[in-house]
Structures are given as C-alpha cells and as structure tokens.
C-alpha cells in the first residue's frame, strides 16, 4: 500500500537521505531500524509530508502523494506520530483527541479510551502534566482519531519503563489486528522483533539491508554492523 521509491531528502543544504526505497503491504508492521542519527526520523517525516524529498516518489495505494502537506496526507489515511510525541500540552487529554480531523467515523474518543483505559481516567487533565507513558499513549491515540490506514510510529517506546513498553507493544499489536498498517522506527532490535513482520535497516541515510524479522534475528553480522544491541 506504501511504496517509497528512491527518495533523497535534504535538511537545508545537508543531504540526509540517499536513494531510500521501501515498501509496505496492507496489514503489515514494517520496522525501520538504525542507530541514532541514521535517518529514521527523516524518512518518517518525509513519508508523513513534513519534509519534502528532492528526488523520488512516494506512492500510497497506487496514488502519487509526493510533496503533499501533512494535513492532506492525514486526510488520505497516513498519520505520523513523532518520537518526541508533541502532544498539545495546553489542552486537556480529551481535547487533544477531540480536535483531530476525523477521516472516518470508525474511530472516536470512546474507542481510543477502550484501547488505552488509562487515558479515560485522566481525560480532563492538562496534557502537559502527563507521565512519559501517558504522553506516548496519547500521541498514538491522537493519531488513531484520524482513522489512519497507515501509522508512522517514530520510536514509540523510546524512554519508557520496560513494563510500559510491554503494554504499549500489546496495543500496537491490537492495532495491527484492527487492520492498520504500521511503519515503526526503532533503535533496539530486540524489542522491535516482537512486533515487526519485516524490517529495513538504515545507516548514514541509506538502506543497508532488508529482510524478514526471522532472517534479521539470525544475522549477527548485520546486527553488529548497523544496530545497537
């Protein structure tokens, strides 16, 4: 459903992504793995429309969506969840969910609260005072309100306590069960193997390896070269 073809992205003058190609099928969770600064976030932001590639095309469900703005992509079904969450800290949890553009009626606050019951209990709290885990859940929940077909999750479990990481992973698997495709960036191979079907490894802005989760698990050399273990 997503087909990224040979994109090059720049931050101002500096060339960050080189010839990055990747694809994702309906209902898959695909990992984008790499060290800090390898180009994961840049790739995610380019697919999410926050950065514009200088070269290459991005196809979504067969349609060329290269260069569209983030809000247009959300309305098309692609929603980006940033690694630093960027929840609206002045608004309440409930309002963070409430202001999102809703593409379909499939997702509403009730369904998000059913997925993350912890959020229901703090619905009236100002989002700025939430804990790291609650912010992570809210960021995912907020994206779900738009009724995405494809979620771009940028290091969703970064900086969270192991117990919370486990809980969040459970929810991510439930999203897959609900038919949402996910591109998931992650530094840590071990934790991502519980979620992903396939993975791309990115280093210095180039895709270095691609394969199924199983192939990657058994390939020690690739892991040593490109990942933090």
């Amino acid at each position, binding site marked *: 459903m997503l087909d990224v073809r040979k994109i090059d992205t720049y931050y101002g003058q500096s060339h960050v992504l080189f010839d990055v190609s990747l694809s994702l099928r309906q209902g898959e969770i695909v990992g984008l793995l790499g060290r800090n600064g390898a180009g994961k976030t840049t790739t995610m932001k380019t697919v*999410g429309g926050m950065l514009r590639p200088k070269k290459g095309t991005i196809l979504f469900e067969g349609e060329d969506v290269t260069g569209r703005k983030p*809000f247009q992509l*959300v309305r098309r079904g692609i929603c980006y969840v940033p690694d630093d969450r960027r929840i609206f800290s*002045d608004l309440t949890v409930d309002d963070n969910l*409430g202001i*999102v*553009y809703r593409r379909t009626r499939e997702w509403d606050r009730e369904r998000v609260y059913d997925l993350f019951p912890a959020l229901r209990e703090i619905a009236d709290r100002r989002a700025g005072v939430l804990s790291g885990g609650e912010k992570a859940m809210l960021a995912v929940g907020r994206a779900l309100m738009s009724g995405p077909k494809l979620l771009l999750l940028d290091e969703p479990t970064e900086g969270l306590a192991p117990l919370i990481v486990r809980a969040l992973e459970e929810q991510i698997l439930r999203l897959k069960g609900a038919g949402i495709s996910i591109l998931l960036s992650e530094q840590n191979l071990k934790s991502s193997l519980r979620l992903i079907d396939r993975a791309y490894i990115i280093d210095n802005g180039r895709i270095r390896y691609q394969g199924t989760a199983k192939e990657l698990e058994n390939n020690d050399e690739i892991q040593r070269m490109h990942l933090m273990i």
Partner: protein
Amino acid sequence: MDFAANLFSTGTLSQILVGLSRTTILFIVSSGMSLILGVLRIPNVAHGSLYMIGAFVAWTVIQFLGGGLFAFLAALVVAPLIVAAVGFVLERGFFSYLYEREHLMLLLLTFSFALILGDLVKIVWGPEYRSVTVPAFFQGSAEIFGLPLPWYNLFLLIVGPCIAVFLWLVINKTNLGKIARAAAVDGEMVGAVGINVGWIFAFTFVLGSFLAGLGGALIAPMVNISLGMDHSLIMEAFLIVIIGGLGNMWGALLGSLIFGLTQSLGILVWPQFGIAFPYLAVVAVLVVRPRGLLRSTW
C-alpha cells in the same frame, strides 16, 4: 501634600471609572493583537491601521444612516465586520504566503501595510478630522456612588467584560479556539493531525482584525477620528501585550488595566506628567518580569 490630597479626593473614584472605561478599548484592541501574535506569531504593526479604519467606517455608517442610536449600534456591528473582511484579504492575499519565511519579512510586510492602509484611509476619507457625536441615548451622566460617570463610559464598562467573556468562550470552549491554542504552541503538529492550519490562521487573523475594528468603532464618539490615530494606539497596544505576556489574552486584560489606570491616576497625582505614568509602569513591570506578567505562548 498636594499629591495625597488629589489622590484621596472624591474625584478619584470617578477618575478610576473613566480610566477603566478607557481600559476597555485598550483591552479590545490589544487582545486582538495578542491573539494574532500568539497564534500566527506576527507582530502586526498594521493592527493600529485596522483600528483606525474601524473608526472611519463607523463614522461613514453613522453619516449614511443619519445618526441616532440605531445608526450608532449599526456602526458597532458593520465597522468591525468590514475591518474583519480587510483582515481576511490581508491574511489570505499576503501574509499566508510568508509564514515559512523569516519573522523579519512578516514584520516588514505588516509595517508596509500600516503605511499603505494609512494612505488608503487618506484617499477614501480625506485628511480632515471627523467626529461622531455620542447618541442622545448615551448623553448625560449616571450617578455611581454619588459621582457622575458619563453614560457612554458606563456602556464601555459593560461592553469590556462582555468581550472578555466572549473571547474566553471562543478560545476555551469551541473546537476552533482549542485548535488555535494548539497551533499557538505547535502549528506543524496541528497540521499533522489533519487540520489545515492555514484556515486556523485566517480565522485568528479575522477575529483579531474584528476586535481592532470594534475598538475603533467604540472609540469613535470619544476622540477626533483622524489620520495618525493608529500611531499612538499601536505603541500602547504593543506595550500592553508585552507586559501582559505575548499571546496571553488575560495578559492583554491585565496589561490594559495597568496601562489605563496608571494613566488616569497619574493625571490626578501629577497632571503635567500624567502621560508618563503608564510608560513608567511598563518599565517597572519589565524590570521585575522581563517576559511579561502572565505566561507567554512564545
């Protein structure tokens, strides 16, 4: 001794009330500026011009309808709406193309529009003074604690809190207001949840312009409507927004209160230097709280 005698004289209370009614207009204009500054991040130098246009349009409407209470009330509705329409054209036609550029560009653009709008006013209304008489309904004075307060000032004292409540409701209770608050802090992320930020900016700019126009229409019966009335106001509005905290609506209210009250009390304390007191208050506030009294969205 003179100072103290003046300060505690019976005239003080009515002077405070007159000061408060002037505060109303400062608040209405500067809250619009603060809104635009908070959400769009534009220090809109042309805001004073919009206020001036509001006053001139109010004059035209009142002339057209032949004066009287109805004409005045019509002007209070029509003038802000026309100014809001001007704001819409400015935002969609010009500012919206520059949001991704440097701030300096936007500042320069607003400055150039302050000049252009000033000249347009001169072309349309000419260089003469215009004046609006207070409708008969508002002439005379009310008795407040045994002291006279002009009915029109009393009217302003009622309008001010109404506008504050209205703004509070728009910003805190409507979806549009909530989105605008989110956009004030992180506009890019608002786009990333599917909202076309451009229209939120347009809405905010139009609302801010409406408030500038309303301020202009409200002040019309109290001053000579003239070219240049934008200049003094824009200075005051900027100072109010700065001491209140950029982008904070309650800050605009607090700043207006400080500005309006120090001005009217300053005149009592030391008539020759009354005009300096608000500026001294601004200096005092900025020395103690350089980022403004209330939390800024910047």
